[in-house]
């Protein structure tokens, strides 16, 4: 069972309190009608599914209820960091710092 840090509660809590919510930084287009079928398909269904560093969303479902972002290694399951929804994707330098 993982320990996950909620960036809103600013505390580590057991995985049981959280739900996973898919890949992060996939913003809903401001006007979906402007997208052609192929672009809309990509937005809806195509995900990066990496081996290694993954930017993903979690929700502190049984806590504050907030959605937030996390960086997790899909091989080791280790979280490099978590951050609030709406913040930009951390840079490689920030990630290095968080991992050390």
């Amino acid at each position, binding site marked *: 069972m993982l320990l996950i840090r909620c960036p809103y509660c600013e505390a580590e809590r057991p995985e049981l309190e959280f739900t996973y919510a898919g890949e992060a930084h996939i913003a*809903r287009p401001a006007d979906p*009608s402007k997208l052609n079928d192929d672009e809309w398909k990509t937005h809806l269904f195509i995900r990066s599914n990496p081996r290694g560093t993954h930017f993903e969303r979690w929700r502190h479902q049984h806590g504050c209820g*907030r*959605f937030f972002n996390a960086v997790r290694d899909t091989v*080791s399951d*280790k979280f490099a960091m978590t951050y609030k*929804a709406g913040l930009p994707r951390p840079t490689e330098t920030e990630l290095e710092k968080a991992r050390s």
Partner: protein
Amino acid sequence: MTSYRIPEKGRVNQGKPVRFTFNGASYVGFEGDTLASALLANGVHLIGRSFKYHRPRGFLSAGSEEPNALVGTDRGPGRFEPNTRATVLEVFDGLNTTSQNHWPSLKRDIGAVNDALYMLFSAGFYYKTFMWPKSFWNKVYEPIIRGAAGLGKSPTTPDPDTYASRFAHCDVLVVGSGPAGLAAALDAGKSGAKVILVDEQAELGGSLLSETDAGINGQSGWQWLEEARSALAAMNNVTVLTRTTAIGYYHQNLVGLCQRLTDHLPNPPADAPRERLWKVRAHQVVLAQGSIEKPLVFEGNDRPGVMLAGSARSYLNRYGVKVGNRPVIVTSHDSAWLAAFDLAEAGVKVAAIIDIRPNVSGHLMESAAALGVEVLSGWTVTGTSGRLRVASVRANPVSRSGVVGSARTIACDALLMSGGWTPSIHLFSHTKGKLDWNEEGQMFLPGEATEESRCAGAGNGVFSLAAALAEGAAAGAAAALDAGFAAKAASYRVDGELVLTGANNRELPTDRNTSKAKAFVDFQNDVTAKDIRLAVREGFKSIEHIKRYTTTGMATDQGKTSNINGLAIASDAVKRPAPAVGLTTFRPPYTPTTFGAFAGYNRGELFEVTRKTPIDGWAEQNGAEFEPVSLWRRAWYFPKKGETMHAAVARECKSVRESLGMFDASTLGKIEIVGPDAAEFMNRMYTNSWTKLAPGRLRYGLMLGEDGFIRDDGVIGRLTTDRFHVTTTTGGAARVLGMMEDYLQTEWPDLKVWLTSTTEQWAVIALNGPNARKLIEPLVEGIDLSDEAFPHMSVAEGKICGVPTRLFRVSFTGELGYEINVPARYGRAVWEELYRAGQQHGITPYGTETMHVLRAEKGYIIVGQDTDGTVTPDDAGLGWAIGKAKPDFVGKRSLTRPDMQKADRKQLVGLLTTDPNTVLEEGAQIVLDPSQTLPMKMVGHVTSSYWSAALGRSIAMAVIEGGKAREGETIHVPTPGRTHTAKVVGTVFFDPENKRLSA
């Protein structure tokens, strides 16, 4: 019966006899015995039959790694448990045990014919037989396999015991209480750190319990152990858990422990839990799991009486039991010599020490000579004899060039073997820690750790007592230091310890035909060296494949005694180094663990919550039958005395259509959506348009996923311009709120909207029927109920029966209807008041079944029953619910994808069976041509199907490819024994003009 117990030897309490049974025969053991040591003390070696060949088997080991000695234990009604390892089962007065895998008796077993048919059961047997003619499989193999399959017998009644669970946090968790673990716990404990020390055995000490030669700090090993125990007991910051197995090591230093609390007690307290599952989150972990002895692989190495030398030493020193009167030792490791010496010193005639190695260190040779034990070094063992117990061993000299000389037979009643020791890296391996191959020791050792953990002692490949104590102390101190405590490693002085070495083997050399040899590698799954070589010949090169093909290492012992031997033989056959062939992954649990421990408190009524409405108690008192709907239990129907479900539902339906029915709709999901941007948020979340909905009006709302498929629906009321009362399906409430929160928090955080679940705040009573208004008119205050002031699809706030209400005029039945929302605490009182007042109209409480029938008569869908996550609004005939002028809403863009507009999509239609009395089965498949060849093309399925009392016939709904265009066509529904026909019709069966809604 001859006793093999040596008076005053060992740690068992020889003053406290206990009586137990094995296969019906009564035996006496002592307090502190395991079933294995107690049976051995009575001269019993034959403990069971093997899994595949039903070969007679004895005790291989003295610990939790035991592959052979699995027994059934019976602790009274409901308390039968199969596959308990006799080597860890503590005996007590009244314990009843039985052997497994035999019929009719342990000594005469018919299944042993498998042993003679061993050629049929070789590697890949299961896979190969699947390829054989089907008739052969059905008639010959399956019955044989089914008859012989399974390890032990399953219990047949529910487990009457209770199981506890506990969370714990500590600074340092030490797994294993041998010398290394004790040293680690002592130093971590002295630092003041919160320490938990666990050991699977009944007492602390690990290998110290079996060895008596070396001294520590000027004391004997056992004296030092006593002191260490007292020191730990005196530290308030140290928790010692015995009979507790660390079963799994998970992320971020979470370790699962299973503590056995009562299995060793003759009369456990009635309310005591049997086991407790601990989830320990440790800052630092020290793994001191020790090591497991390797068997040698030679023909007949599985005969009862053949056991690991170190285990024989445990039986002697710890339990005071000699495993035979005339043992022979066969070994390639010095440690087995110590077993021989201990036995000889205890007065046992050791017939010979056979050492595979041509050269053995001088001091061992001298000690053997002094004790009068014959030594055959540079010899091999090529066979054993004896039907139910080893009677002799066949030994041959091996020349320097590897030629096996002529055999000599040595009589014996026990054969004690050692192929060296394998570090237990199981828990370390659970963490995906890197494993390093040690070529010299032919073992995997813990490498770089992925967690905050350290390994110490034999589990880390450090086998000497002195080094293990030093490494344990260092690990304990370092762990405490890392956890933030000032700690120092103690130093230990060890006297009288011998330096032990060994050599490694594959199968032992033999002069016999190896293709027929039954030289066992995996005792529990009956896998021989020949099976592994055969698998390699057939093309398997990776241990993961060889393992699955031969099933080696896949039994309940996870190959604790067999993995390294299997790997060595595979690596030899593949002609690649062992690490290139690979080690299989260890997975939790370390030893078999009861389902009860995992389930803990979460069983029976506590398995999951049962949600009940405020009116549930009334329904129960009034004889309702219930059905589960998501976590809720809902009144299903209200049978009168002796009434069938069919009759009750028909009566309830009739009452609603003719006069008045009442229904508990409290389980409806409810969300209050409030804020200046509430209407805008609703416009984006639902397909419908909300801008123009006036306060005081209701609208049916349809919610899609972004993929354009129906997710949920419900009637939604606008109370004021900035406040909506949303209802959702009963099962969808949490999901809908979660989806709304997701969009609000992450896509549109700029919207000023607040979402609150109010499902449990409101009790909802649905009144339906022509007399609904007549009933509530005198009970309602502050709302004009006239058709003009309060038409269908209206909402108003006022009072009913003197309590506040949000009154909806809405209908899910097609009749004049109201949904009366009152604060939950008034729900039952209002329900009872309406029930009393409604007697004049013959008011009839009805359940979910009647609700389903009535809504189906009107063609109202139930999301999740008539839709399945692949249904668009158009498919469901709900195209009218889409606000086409809206620029965007969740799912809108997907509705114009080409796939979503195909004419042959499955669409919701009504069905009328040709035979009006046939009620189709929900889920039944639909075909267009019933005479087509198999497999038929299925074009859809029945989603809802009922007997309609109002129409005097059956009705059904279905999704069918291009269904709307098929109206009027006949379709076919093949079911076992009969193919039904039905006509495709519209989905509204009753009152299509909706006259009754405004009646």
